[in-house]
């Protein structure tokens, strides 16, 4: 047996009207919908065979940040699998606080794009294994990119976006992935604005372009509609982990049946 492919549920945590932490999932990073209590969900996922969790703090406020650290503490006390926490991390102090609360890894998006040295600083202070660089990629079909791939008969490149896809940066995702790795990123977390919430499959050309470029593990995210999409991203795009939110939250598929589907088709998973 070899290293298994990881199945990772992702939880977006925001504050509800009373200021309590709550899990939300959205489509195209908008129109958020309430789906449950984060600690209870984490415990349920732990028991159902999740290989890791990703928690994204989408509150983007100081108050939300403190609440999120409390959630991380509560989850870390209950659940004995790796926990990645992202959202609003911009300084080594933010990294330190999040790790100290019990996260095993931090996921950094905008903070690293705006100040790439943060990747070096984080890797040096806490080790590459806990620095996950996350990209929110958007397909662009113009001439301004560096790495082009064929998508539906057209040539496209992938742009890093900020603020959940609302703001472009002009930075090529593939270039940035290579740079982040050379600065000490231990893992790359690849989201797709085009696929987020669609459930019509991961962005395979995007995931493949990144996994072909870097030697660090690649987590595919956005667009998973079921076990067959996981199968495709592992076998066609060489992802190391597949992340999903809504298919698990709403009980459309269990993690166990997803793993059984993959196991039957020869993909190594932890059963």
């Amino acid at each position: 047996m070899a290293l298994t492919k990881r199945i990772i549920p992702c939880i977006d945590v925001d504050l509800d009207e009373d200021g309590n932490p709550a899990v939300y999932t959205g489509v195209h990073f908008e129109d958020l919908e309430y789906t449950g209590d984060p600690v209870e969900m984490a415990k349920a996922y732990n028991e159902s065979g999740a290989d890791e969790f990703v928690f994204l703090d989408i509150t983007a406020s100081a108050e939300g940040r403190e609440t999120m650290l409390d959630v991380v503490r509560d989850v870390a006390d209950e659940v004995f699998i790796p926990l990645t926490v992202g959202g609003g991390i911009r300084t080594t102090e933010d990294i330190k606080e999040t790790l100290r609360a019990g996260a095993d890894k931090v996921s950094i998006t905008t903070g690293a794009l705006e100040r790439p040295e943060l990747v070096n600083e984080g890797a040096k202070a806490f080790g590459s294994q806990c620095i996950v660089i996350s990209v929110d990629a958007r397909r662009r079909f113009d001439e301004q990119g560096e790495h082009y791939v064929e998508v539906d008969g057209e040539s496209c490149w992938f742009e890093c976006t900020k603020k959940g896809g609302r703001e472009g940066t002009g930075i090529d995702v593939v270039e940035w992935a290579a740079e982040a790795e050379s600065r000490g990123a231990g893992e790359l977390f690849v989201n797709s604005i085009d696929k987020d919430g669609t459930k019509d499959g991961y962005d395979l050309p995007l995931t493949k372009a990144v996994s072909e470029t870097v030697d660090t593990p690649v987590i595919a995210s956005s667009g998973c509609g079921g076990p067959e999409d996981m199968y495709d991203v592992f076998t066609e795009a060489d992802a190391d982990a597949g992340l999903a939110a809504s298919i698990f939250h709403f009980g459309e598929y269990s993690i166990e049946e997803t793993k059984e589907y993959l196991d039957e088709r020869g993909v190594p998973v932890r059963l």
Partner: protein
Amino acid sequence: MSSVSSAADQSLASVVVVDYGLGNLRSVTRGLERAGADVTITDDPDAFAEADGVVLPGVGAFREGVENAAPIRDHLLEVAERDQPLFGICLGMQMLLTSSEEGETDGESAVEGLDLVPGTNVRFSDGQKVPHMGWNELDVQRDHPLVEGVDGQYAYFVHSYYAVPDDEFATVASTDYECEFPSIVADDAGNVFGTQFHPEKSGETGLQILRNFVEICADA
């Protein structure tokens, strides 16, 4: 308060988690508590002597680990000499060996590990993704109370270097990542041992290993 005292009443063994300034000790502490241990986080050598067992955790680089642990080095060696259980986790396991390729970087002289399990730590060669990150299988090679009930189970790894003990007998379990590498090692006496993976992050399998450890401590 009543829940605190009842937890203490039920504890099977007292365990010290060595705090030498590296990594987050919260998860390993919680895991050991869940496994029935009464845990103290400290760098006080007197506490090492009084405990039923000692855990040397660690995340990060070999050189940094060895240098941070320098003030307590002799005390850790004394734990082993007294036949107390000494359990190294991840970097803590690598530090049980003699040396590491990781300690030889930047033109600095090599640093020496605890040399309780003679051998060296080497980097995964090219062609594999590094770090080796994720869940991989434990293939138990020989009897040791630490591995009771975990053969063929999966554990969570994050590392770029792996142990190569001089003596094959030191390998208690191995794992396949393009090459077979030792994922659990132990010394000849059996009271010094370590896991390359993180039992505190390895779900039920990891908790089983921590329970086994607590039993070793209780029996010691």
